[in-house]
């Protein structure tokens, strides 16, 4: 029997730059197929061809033994293919059933919508998915994972036989991920096929049956998923092996740079105590909603209401604005880079210099040449890859954007640098590089704090790890003795106090 879907010998170029070269992929009925590769490997292009967004230059799509042409997203949908994008396509100000039927509302013969019938159908589908939401709930009141469920419900409503999911777990907390996976396994039983795009190999191992790895527009590997394949898959993705070794060496630390005592903010975090010394890397981990981001936004002066004591180099400080944090010697590389860190209309150089423009001024005027020279320095030091530093920063890859943000705080000469989710949206190869830069900062005497929900990742770099659960620090480990399982048991609240 032939496959449910085969894409055969697909090639595609944009502006004469080949993005896909002779790519073939097969997906069976009721199979979860992982599509892997670093950013820029061609995953999105391949899926956009399947979704009818782009047309292939060469090659064919065969569905149930018939060659089909996906000329528009609508044709793709009519063949039973649904594409769930990374940025969810739900409208917060509409109700659940309105989202589900958006563009396909059921109407009576006078053209009025049949609310009750749509609600009933919505309830049926949600029940089928094992999700308990009232159809008339406004979507803005739902968790991200439920919004994702809605997308899946929409796919079922359209009788989709194939669902494409593009990095569905990036915005999900651990327990939400489990909910999603259970649902995917259910769908599989009913014969629905899923193409699953992700960077997270652990997840893929848990939920996928088969995989295809793309690199530079080629298929470099495709097989059934087996436990022992993980290392090999990583090797295939980056084209070289990535070691699991610790990146940090223990060395002696300098004086205490940051000391926090009894820091409390009603409803977000309570009684937080910790110190960070010069040269030390301290990690904070936990599930989504554990309060770590709020804690450090408060420390950085972005949130104003908190009690407790903050000392920087043994001096009491009172920080009510990021500017004061900056003056006190703190720097923040925030999470959600696009919203919080980069100024997309400024060019790369201007993003680097934004917090330290005084360094480049002469008689009150900014000297563009001084800025450029300084940027060249960081370009080499941090290995930033920029075709033209005068282009706006949003043209760079995530990893390079992050390096520019790091350069910004180096130029400020911050003593204490806080990294919130520093590898968000950055591919495997560049992740390691970012961590190497972070370790190098500590080696040069910076006090470093890393916030991440991926304990396995920061375990490799931190000297000390604090685990948070519902606004409290529930455990503290030395980096080399922590294990993922133990961190997880404190982060989920199943173990307390240590």
């Amino acid at each position, binding site marked *: 029997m032939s496959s449910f879907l085969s894409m055969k010998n697909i090639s595609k170029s944009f*502006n*004469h730059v080949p993005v896909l070269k002779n790519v073939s992929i097969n997906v069976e009925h009721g199979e979860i197929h992982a599509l892997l590769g670093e950013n820029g490997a061609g995953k999105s292009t391949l899926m956009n061809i399947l979704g009818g967004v782009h047309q292939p230059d060469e090659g064919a799509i065969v569905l149930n033994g018939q060659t089909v042409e996906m000329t528009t997203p609508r044709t793709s949908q009519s063949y039973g293919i649904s594409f769930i994008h990374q940025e969810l396509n739900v409208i917060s100000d509409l109700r659940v059933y309105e989202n589900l039927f958006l563009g396909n509302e059921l109407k009576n013969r006078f053209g009025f919508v049949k609310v009750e019938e749509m609600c009933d159908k919505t309830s049926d589908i949600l029940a089928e998915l094992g999700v308990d939401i009232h159809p008339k709930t406004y979507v803005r009141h739902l968790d991200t994972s439920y919004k994702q469920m809605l997308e899946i419900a929409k796919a079922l409503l359209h009788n989709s036989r194939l669902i494409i999911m593009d990095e569905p777990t990036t915005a999900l907390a651990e327990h939400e991920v489990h909910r999603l996976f259970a649902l995917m396994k259910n769908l599989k039983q009913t014969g629905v096929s899923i193409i699953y795009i992700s960077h997270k190999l652990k997840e893929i191992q848990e939920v996928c049956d088969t995989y295809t790895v793309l690199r530079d527009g080629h298929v470099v590997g495709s097989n059934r998923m087996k436990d022992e394949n993980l290392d090999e898959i990583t090797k295939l993705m980056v084209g070289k092996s990535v070691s699991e070794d610790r990146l940090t060496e223990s060395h002696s630390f300098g004086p205490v740079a940051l000391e926090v005592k009894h820091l409390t903010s009603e409803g977000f975090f309570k009684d937080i105590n910790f110190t960070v010394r010069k040269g030390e890397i301290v990690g904070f981990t936990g599930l989504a909603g554990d309060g770590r981001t709020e804690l450090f936004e408060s420390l*950085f002066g*972005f949130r104003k209401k908190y009690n407790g004591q903050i000392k920087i180099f043994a001096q009491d400080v009172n920080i009510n*604005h*990021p*500017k004061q*944090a*900056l003056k006190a010697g703190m720097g*923040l590389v*925030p999470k959600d880079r696009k*919203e*919080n*860190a*980069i*100024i*997309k*209309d*400024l060019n790369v150089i*201007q993003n680097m210099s*934004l*917090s330290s*423009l*005084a360094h480049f*001024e002469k008689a*009150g*005027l*900014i000297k563009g040449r001084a800025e450029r020279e300084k940027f060249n320095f960081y370009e080499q030091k941090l290995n930033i890859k920029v075709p033209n530093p005068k282009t706006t920063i949003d043209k760079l890859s995530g990893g390079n954007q992050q390096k520019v943000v790091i350069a*910004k705080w180096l130029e*400020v000469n911050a003593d204490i640098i806080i990294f919130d989710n520093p590898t968000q949206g950055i591919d495997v190869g560049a992740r390691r590089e970012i961590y190497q830069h972070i370790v190098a900062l500590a080696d040069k005497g910076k006090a470093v704090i890393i916030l991440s929900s991926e304990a396995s990742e920061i375990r490799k770099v931190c000297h000390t790890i604090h685990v948070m659960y519902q606004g409290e620090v529930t455990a503290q480990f030395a980096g080399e003795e922590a294990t993922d399982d133990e961190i997880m048991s404190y982060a989920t609240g199943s173990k307390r106090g240590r």
Partner: protein
Amino acid sequence: MAEPEFERAKRSTKWNSRLSWIWTEYSVIIAFLILFVVSSILSPRFLEFSNLMNILMQVSIIGVIALGMTMIMLSGGIDLSVGSVLALVGVFSVIALNASGSIFIAIITALAVGAFTGFLNGFMVAKLKIAAFIATLGMMAAARSIALYTSDGGSISGEVEGFSAISNSSIGAVQSPIFIFGLMAVLVFILLHQTRFGRYVYAIGSNEKGALLSGIRVDRIKMAVYTLAGMLVSVAAIIETSRLNSISSSSSGQLYELDAIAAVIIGGTRMTGGRGKVVGTLFGVLILGILNNMMNLMNVSPYLQGFVTGLVIIIAVVFQKRE
């Protein structure tokens, strides 16, 4: 055979992307040049030196206001109150002039009133977090009302000799309002493109939260932007009042906000902030000036000028959408 074809295609896409870059960066200048050439063909009087000077003279007041509007719109805001504030500033400065007999005190009063109303706008936007459109709409109504109340709804004239000389004198062949406009344009250009303040304005308009987390005092910068723009309205008010040696509390400054915002948008500044240039605004002002001038030269009813302005704004925005 395939090879050279590929090369040619590559070159032509390169050309295309270069052309589109020129278009997005300089579209307002190209539009200006086209309008200029068309105008000189349509009317022989257009190119006369006195007519060109006349155009500059007529755009100088809106031009000065549009410079401040550029700063505000780059920061992501808007100011609907400029026309009313111009009348208010004019009324207060003439009162101060007549009471003190000093031109200097009249100018200081004008700058103080403009700065104060601008600061209030900025305070409402930055500290009270009121949408700029609403805050300045309120100021538009309030400032006009105070101007009417103070002057009993009528006009007041200057009674001090020499005040009208501010606008009615020339430096060489250049009338002083044009000179003042040019000077302000240079100052605002330097402020926006060469100073820390200007960089912060762009950063705030592009990504306010990102700017805040970069350690920028977003509130203070916003208040400074509105205050400076208010002072530019003062400068415009001085030119206007001095030119006629009087100010009308009811009709002076009517719909100036429309022309100023139009000039900024035609000049390519993005409504949501973060992107735009002072030079663009200058050409936007000139385009509006030439259009009005041509309609006069060709005996088009002045009642239709608003129609043409409206049309040009919409066309400009449609073209900018294409980037």
